[in-house]
């Protein structure tokens, strides 16, 4: 894991490997696609929580905005897939400027409460604007256009396999870029702010600016994930912007672990696959999920990624004579 942290290429290779193996382990491409999409959503949350120590209950705003953006553009204007996803990323990033600017006026519990309030506001706004968002019914029959560039069709995304490859590529690139970001001087500054914000101000950093920029990066990748989710489901439910969605993203992030970006992938796979498998077995499956969350909070504070860390360490030890 230490290598993944320092090397963006290492992380990209690891993500690509996971993307390669995932469909072999899971019953369908759809499930694997969902894992990768939520890994990207959790990646944004990971940047904020892991690098900056900021817990945002507003991640569903970005996820939902990205999804609505792709949905509305392709339904109303027949926008292509690349333009749609770019717009989703840009719109979420813009929203993140506003949300980040407001939220970082406060710290600690008040920041959490502020993101919670903003998230609820956004939910009720979407609910109250059915002409735009489809309200409670959501946006249906969203087309999934083929990948085209300058009028030339490059790839049909109609088959589950083709779409999975498309998502896997974007996901790998997103993880790679995020790893570059946190390895940069900018990323170093975020760690400094997490460690001691007062001091960071005293040596001359405009810490709020850094926090807002981090919000923008997190918002952009989460919005991109939301846009992909709209294309995956061909449907944008109101549930994309509800509090449960923010909770889901947070749970994936913390469960996976915030010491390494790879944790977001683990957290997403764990939650998506568990809720799929368990709900098939027992209607009260959320008892198991709940107990698992408590256990992780108490006994596995570094999340699933730390488990992997330990396994690697043990394997290294065992390899030595």
């Amino acid at each position, binding site marked *: 894991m230490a290598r993944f942290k320092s090397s963006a290429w290492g992380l990209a290779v690891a993500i690509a490997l996971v993307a390669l193996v995932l469909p072999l382990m899971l019953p369908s491409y759809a499930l694997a696609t969902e894992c990768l999409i939520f890994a990207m959503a959790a990646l944004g949350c990971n940047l904020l929580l892991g690098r900056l120590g900021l817990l945002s209950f507003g991640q569903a705003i970005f996820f939902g905005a990205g999804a609505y953006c792709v949905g509305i553009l392709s339904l109303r204007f027949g926008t292509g897939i690349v333009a749609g996803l770019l717009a989703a990323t840009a719109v979420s990033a813009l929203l993140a400027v506003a949300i980040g600017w407001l939220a970082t006026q406060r710290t600690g519990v008040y920041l959490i409460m502020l993101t919670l309030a903003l998230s609820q506001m956004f939910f009720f706004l979407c609910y109250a604007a059915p002409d735009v968002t489809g309200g409670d019914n959501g946006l249906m029959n969203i087309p999934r256009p083929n990948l085209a560039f300058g009028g030339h069709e490059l790839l049909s995304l109609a088959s589950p396999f083709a779409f999975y490859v498309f998502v896997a590529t974007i996901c790998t690139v997103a993880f790679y870029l995020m790893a570059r970001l946190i390895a940069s001087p900018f990323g*170093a500054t975020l760690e*400094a702010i997490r460690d001691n914000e007062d001091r960071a101000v005293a040596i001359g950093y405009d810490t709020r600016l850094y926090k807002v920029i981090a919000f923008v990066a997190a918002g952009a990748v989460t919005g991109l994930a939301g846009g992909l989710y709209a294309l995956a489901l061909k449907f944008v439910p109101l549930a994309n912007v509800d509090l449960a969605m923010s909770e889901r993203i947070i749970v994936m992030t913390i469960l996976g672990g915030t010491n390494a970006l790879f944790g977001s992938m683990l957290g997403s796979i764990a939650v998506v696959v568990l809720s799929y498998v368990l709900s098939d077995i027992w209607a009260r499956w959320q008892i198991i999920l709940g107990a698992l969350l408590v256990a992780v909070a108490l006994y596995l504070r570094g999340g699933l990624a730390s488990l992997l860390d330990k396994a690697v360490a043990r394997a290294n030890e065992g390899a030595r004579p």
Partner: protein
Amino acid sequence: MTHSLPATQGPPLAVSGIEKRFDGFQALKGVSFTIEDRGVYAFIGPNGAGKTTLFNCIAGRIRPSAGEVRVAGRDITRLPSHRRVHAGLARSFQITNLFASLSVHENVRLAVQAHSPRRVVNMWRGRDTLTDVGARTDTLLARLMLTDKQAIPAGLLSHGEQRRLEIAMALAGDPRVLLLDEPTSGMGIDDIDIMTGLIAEFGKSMAVVLIEHNVRLVMKISRSITVLHRGAILRSGLPEAIAADPQVRAAYLGAAA
């Protein structure tokens, strides 16, 4: 590293008419002084004289109720803390305040990096690839005698080493004015001697504003000493003159009694 800030003419630090009121209590009653040149300038006074309030007003941690602070001719009274650093004003904290979980090297590197703003927000390069930042970091570590400790987390340094690290970080931007708040508090004899020597040396290249209890240290290295009493300046002058001043003695004894 040099700054290309406007209005770099004028004395390093000019404070005029600083007042601070807290809920009916007047902590500072109009403090004015000007530091014209390099050297160590000490501020002493009995407890409650307003030293720390004055320090915080200059550093930007609290905003004065009235008055003005200028660094190198530039009015910084309303500037947020982080921008004062770029105006040439650096400070260390009375309570040790570091990035405890980061390495000594990274602490200094971050402080140096803060002064290359165009590349700070660069999200593409590795954090260790800014070579001039690396060189400056190494210089500072050597100057503060921390080179052999650079790999360990700052939280694991001894108290004296932590105070030195504080100062290394404050020096990162090559400030015109360095504010030090009781740099030797809680130190052992050996560490105090090292620190005293370092402060004297800094005084050769910048204006050092020192708030200190240790009168012996102050006497040894200060170019000028200012005594604060009940929120106002009581006396200001050469160390010997201050030591002999009856009013200063009365203030200290009165406070003690």
